[in-house]
């Protein structure tokens, strides 16, 4: 016969329970740390109830209130502007049917308004517009040339680079526009063949979207040249122009099926770029290029990136995240997800991040935000059907967690 010591039993029970409780309290005291600023991280889809409505994002900029202004095309062609607050919620949107074919880059004026190029629907003239954060639209300049804008970018002195296609002449034109909106330079590029179908497919978003882009090459604060990715002499090619406006070297693509998809000057004739060749994509995070040289893009080494879909848009930018200089490539994968690749400026791979799942998601642009994070602009097909703008915000901590 044995007897049970209830005191010992209870003592064992309570002490064991106490140990377990203390263990979990120490390992699970996560309640107090359960805080995050709502503006630091979010994912949003800007929806409406119209089946016929379709939206194609173009560019975004962060506004002075910490929110964002998105430039997009509505119904393929009309100008659509969307104001988002710092937490990702829609503040207002507006569709401007009198201005069509809007293009990026959005640029910020001294008064905090945002500027972009579009085309006046009646006169077919390229127009520079400005919209304030409270939705007031102002036409700054209507240019005399009746061409279809393909790309633009702001210059460091407040002017603009503008690339446009003239259907009548069958040529692409590159203009440098001064800070007071005067055309101070013009260069034409002749493809020497009819590329109307390709331009139409690009402009009306009904086929391959070609990587037309422009930019400025700086040495410190001094402009040493410009670059233009354009149809020229039976191919797509990156043309260099020196600071004096004289054509310099170029990087030739292969017909219209191989060329640069993004290009970013780093420093001292070093560049980061991506290129496409038929349905393959390659990243070259750091390569020396003499802008006076003429060479083929296929001679540029690079790492083949198997994830990215054929002819996908590639956005390449620099950012300082967590005190580190980072190169970021953004694109769209073959299974329709947004992907970001992170490299050091010397080309060392740091990590990657996927965004979106199940339904198609496509990257259109991203920016480095004031809080050190990233805002990624994309398009998704809601419920697999309806094209809508989406915006992902990643905090610097989230990105830091991705980087090696």
């Amino acid at each position: 016969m044995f007897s049970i010591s209830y005191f010992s039993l209870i003592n064992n029970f309570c002490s064991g329970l106490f140990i377990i409780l203390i263990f979990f309290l120490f390992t699970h005291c996560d309640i107090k740390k359960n805080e995050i600023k709502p503006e630091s991280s979010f994912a949003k889809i800007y929806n409406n109830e119209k089946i016929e409505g379709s939206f194609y994002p173009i560019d975004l900029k962060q506004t002075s209130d910490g929110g964002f202004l998105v430039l997009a095309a509505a119904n393929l062609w009309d100008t659509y502007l969307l104001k988002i607050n710092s937490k990702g919620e829609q503040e207002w949107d507006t569709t401007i049917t009198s201005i069509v074919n809007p293009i990026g880059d959005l640029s910020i004026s001294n008064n905090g308004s945002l500027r972009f190029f579009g085309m006046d629907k009646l006169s077919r003239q390229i127009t520079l517009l400005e919209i304030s954060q409270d939705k007031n639209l102002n036409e700054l300049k209507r240019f005399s040339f009746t061409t279809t804008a393909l790309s633009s970018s702001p210059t460091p002195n407040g002017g603009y680079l503008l690339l446009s296609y003239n259907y009548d002449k069958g040529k692409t034109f590159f203009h440098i526009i001064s800070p007071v909106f005067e055309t101070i330079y013009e260069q034409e590029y002749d493809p020497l063949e009819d590329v109307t179908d390709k331009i139409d497919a690009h402009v009306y978003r009904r086929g391959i979207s070609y990587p037309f882009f422009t930019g400025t090459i700086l040495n410190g604060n001094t402009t040493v040249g410009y670059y233009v990715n354009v149809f020229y002499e039976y191919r797509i090619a990156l043309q260099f122009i020196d600071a004096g406006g004289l054509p310099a070297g170029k990087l030739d693509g292969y017909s219209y099926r191989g060329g640069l998809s993004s290009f970013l000057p780093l420093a001292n004739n070093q560049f980061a770029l991506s290129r496409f060749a038929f349905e393959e994509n390659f990243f070259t995070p750091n390569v020396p290029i003499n802008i006076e040289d003429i060479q083929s893009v296929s001679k540029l080494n690079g790492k083949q990136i198997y994830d990215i879909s054929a002819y996908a848009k590639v956005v390449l930018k620099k950012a300082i995240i967590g005190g580190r200089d980072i190169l970021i490539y953004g694109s769209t994968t073959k299974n329709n997800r947004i992907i970001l690749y992170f490299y050091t400026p010397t080309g060392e791979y740091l990590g990657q991040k996927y965004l979106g799942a199940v339904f198609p998601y496509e990257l259109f642009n991203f920016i480095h935000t004031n809080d050190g994070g990233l805002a990624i602009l994309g398009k998704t097909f809601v419920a697999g059907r309806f094209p809508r703008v989406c915006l992902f915000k990643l905090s610097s901590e989230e990105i830091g967690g991705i980087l090696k």
Partner: protein
Amino acid sequence: MILKKQVFILLTLFVFTSFLKVADSKGQQKLTEGDMDASKWWMGIKTGANFTSPQIIVPYSVFSGENLTLEKSYSGSLQNKGFQIGILAGHAFTNFLSVTIQPSYFIYSYSYQANYNWIDTVGNKIDLNFNYQQILYYLDIPLFVRFYYKLGKFQPFIQGGGYYGILLNGRKNISIEENNTLSGAAYDFTETKKTFNNKNLFLKSLLGWTLGAGLTYDIEWFRIGFEVNYRGGLNNITNVKNRFSENNLVSGVYDLMDDLKLRNTEVSLSVAVPLDNLVHVSRSGGKPSKKRKRAN
């Protein structure tokens, strides 16, 4: 599943080793037959159902836009059934006041719906109804102070206290219904079901208070109990840092966790035995005594 096993093994081992240690401590205080009312220490098991009604602190939606219904519609508590099972141990300070601790394995469940629709200019429309069910597995450790009122063998009581829960696992079931008149049919219906592990979307910790009432009834050397407790969560159980972390949920099924607290009604049955004067087992196979002596 592995975690559930771990907890089960942990609890079983703990109780088992406690008994073994005590059983081996021969020569210690020998128990005598006594009165149920005179018992100070109690131990038993408890099981039952629970019904969850989340308290929404801040709603979140993947979508933003004008004229959209973005808030989710949460099901009533009777549709959010859960289950719990555990052990209880208590100490009666007087015939009217006791303290009990009840480590239990809790399964909470709650569900909500979100509806999105699109319409064209001639009235064709697509409705998507997402039904989400969250199932959460916790190890809860509640501590109660219980006040009795004696009515012969019946002892009604009220009790109050707090609990600390540890999230063991989580699961999310999603079903999607689609009503589509675009495809030419007057009515089209498809349904998709998906299941995700959602443990990362919740905090590991759960704190709360509880208030309840019940009744016990003594049968031989067992004390059978029935109780109903209302449990109010004190903290937001959503892990806000991981709210957007699950691509498949956020981008794929448009599910974004609201900030919320768990509110829950628990209904339980318990069986307890007095440890200090009723459990008296003979090594030679003798039966426990059924005699009961009334307290003075």
